[in-house]
């Protein structure tokens, strides 16, 4: 088990390092470069000045050398300055992180609390009208374009029946807890509709699979009540793969959060990434993207480890492999 954990850790670090290089290289291919931006803001700069500035910032060096230089600085905690926010990038992130944490955390909890019982209900009444309706709703949630859903929610709840704020985290001049909560309603509803369909389908499929097992028949044969069988025997085993799949879908949830945040002008990590890419804020985009990658990798790692830890039937003496 220790070897397995170590193997997965090393693997994640390698993926992260490779991704840092890939993202660094991609950011270098974005339109416009920092020196062009400086020339634009100061027309007195001559081509000679531009060349000198390139040398000062090391932009005339080959990609690998620039990357190593950046990586060394990053390892010592210097990720550079944000162009848009005029602060060290690490100082910009905490506020955005907290907002995204609130949005994704709330969505996650609400989705699970609804998806688990609904999925079990559908599984126990397979092919019933209720199952059919739930299935339709799940497909609708999976298929709806999330930016359009956000748009429709804004039209209905902020324009036609103006009961909820359509953007931001709080009213102008701050606001109490209630005000902040009101601003979270539409983004959380949007992201929940986006995620809940697949969670429910996972739960339903997993429960159907478990209910076919011999030990369930044994439990019934021993005279256990239906509720007892479902709650004590089936639910635990059905949850295991669902937990894993949900953790693995963290990246999808984050992608959904990016769109939701952009639509509702909600200052979270997704909007930060989008704005910094659009605003040529390369240092910010690089670090925010890397951070999103790191968190996604950690979620996947946690999923694999939880699976290995929760399921005693699986032993990992080989190390390195993923339990899938």
């Amino acid at each position: 088990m220790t070897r397995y954990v170590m193997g997965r850790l090393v693997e994640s670090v390698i993926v992260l390092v490779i991704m840092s290089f890939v993202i660094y290289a991609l950011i270098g291919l974005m339109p416009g470069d920092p020196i062009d931006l400086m020339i634009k803001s100061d027309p007195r700069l001559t081509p000679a000045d531009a060349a000198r500035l390139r040398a000062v910032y090391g932009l005339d060096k080959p990609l690998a050398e620039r990357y190593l230089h950046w990586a060394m600085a990053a390892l010592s905690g210097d990720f550079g300055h944000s162009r848009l926010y005029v602060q060290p990038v690490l100082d910009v992130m905490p506020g955005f992180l907290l907002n995204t944490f609130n949005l994704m955390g709330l969505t996650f909890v609400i989705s699970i609390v609804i998806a688990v019982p609904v999925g079990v209900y559908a599984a126990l009444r397979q092919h019933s009208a209720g199952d059919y309706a739930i299935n339709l709703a799940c497909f609708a949630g999976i298929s709806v374009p999330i930016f359009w859903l956000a748009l429709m929610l804004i039209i209905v709840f902020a324009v036609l029946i103006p009961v909820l704020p359509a953007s931001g985290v709080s009213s102008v001049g701050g606001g109490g807890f209630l005000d902040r909560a009101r601003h979270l309603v539409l983004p959380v509803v949007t992201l929940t509709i986006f995620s809940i369909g697949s969670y429910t389908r996972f739960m339903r499929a997993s429960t159907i699979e478990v209910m076919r097992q011999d030990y369930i028949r044994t439990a019934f044969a021993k005279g256990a009540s239906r509720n007892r069988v479902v709650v004590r025997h089936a639910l635990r085993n059905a949850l295991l793969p669902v937990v894993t799949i949900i953790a693995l879908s963290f990246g999808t949830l984050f992608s959904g959060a990016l769109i939701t945040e952009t639509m509702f002008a909600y200052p979270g990590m997704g909007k930060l990434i989008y704005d910094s890419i659009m605003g040529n804020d390369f240092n910010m985009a690089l670090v925010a993207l890397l951070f999103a990658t790191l968190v996604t990798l950690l979620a996947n790692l946690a999923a694999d480890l939880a699976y290995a830890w929760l399921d005693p039937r699986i032993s990992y003496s080989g190390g390195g492999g993923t339990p899938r």
Partner: protein
Amino acid sequence: MNAAHHAMTKPAMGARTVWSLFFHRLGAHRLAVGSAVFLAVLGVLAFATPAIEAVLGVDANLVDLSRRFQGPSRAHLLGTDELGRDLLVRLLYGGQVSLFVGIVAALASAVTGTVVGLLAGYYGGRLDAFLMRLTDGVIALPLLPLLIVLAALDLTKLGLPESVVQDPNISLYRIIVIISLVGWTTVARLVRAAALSVREMDYVLAATAAGAGGLRIMAVHILPNVISPIIVASTLSVGNVILLESVLSFLGLGIQPPIASWGNMLTGAQELIWSSPELAFYPGMLIFVTVIAFNFLGDGLQDAMDPRAIEG
């Protein structure tokens, strides 16, 4: 119940072929059938749009500022948009783009995934380990932020010639390429898993003994066994591709105007929700209905092709 029982319930039909069973089961999935019909109609309409334009006497790209925001009329069946263009034919052209991007990117992803999965599953060992780590790595990435970066890249910096970069359809090709770059992982895993199990079968051993090479075994003996999961996964992925294309186009990073796409028709809609909310409604509704149709169809195909599903 099982296949024998199923067949026995209709003794008059005699023995059933795999295909008749397949269509029988697909037919039982009414949503999938309805979806297939809807998609076929949409496809025909979308690709017949130039003819429809001629019949209606409208031009999808004709800007006429004196006819902005018009309601439905005989000249413009669904009215006009913020630049006075006919909404209906723009929606149909958008459908053409979405279907084209969705199907081509899904096919390209399926081909890449099949090749990766076959190589990994058949040859195993270090190649398998490398390819599967690569697959896990791609799956583990936060997709949308990366797609946004890829969509925003400056193609001249990639060394592409000016004539390619200036091509009016470049945004179309670019979106297909970047979605295919990340979309192959599901198929790769499915094919690998199937190849792993099939490769141990006796008939593969027999083929090897008869002197068949790796390429022939993969193409003739393994591929036919994995074709149905590939079809299911690809059908489902068309829906996902359309969603990704629409969001990137909506953000201004996908299909570029004047080419209409359902996503970029919504780009300006956020400012118009007061004056004409229907401009924000139609394109999104079409994305929604089309994606759900592909998902129902994929679900139906899965049930129809899964041998275990007969009991249902």
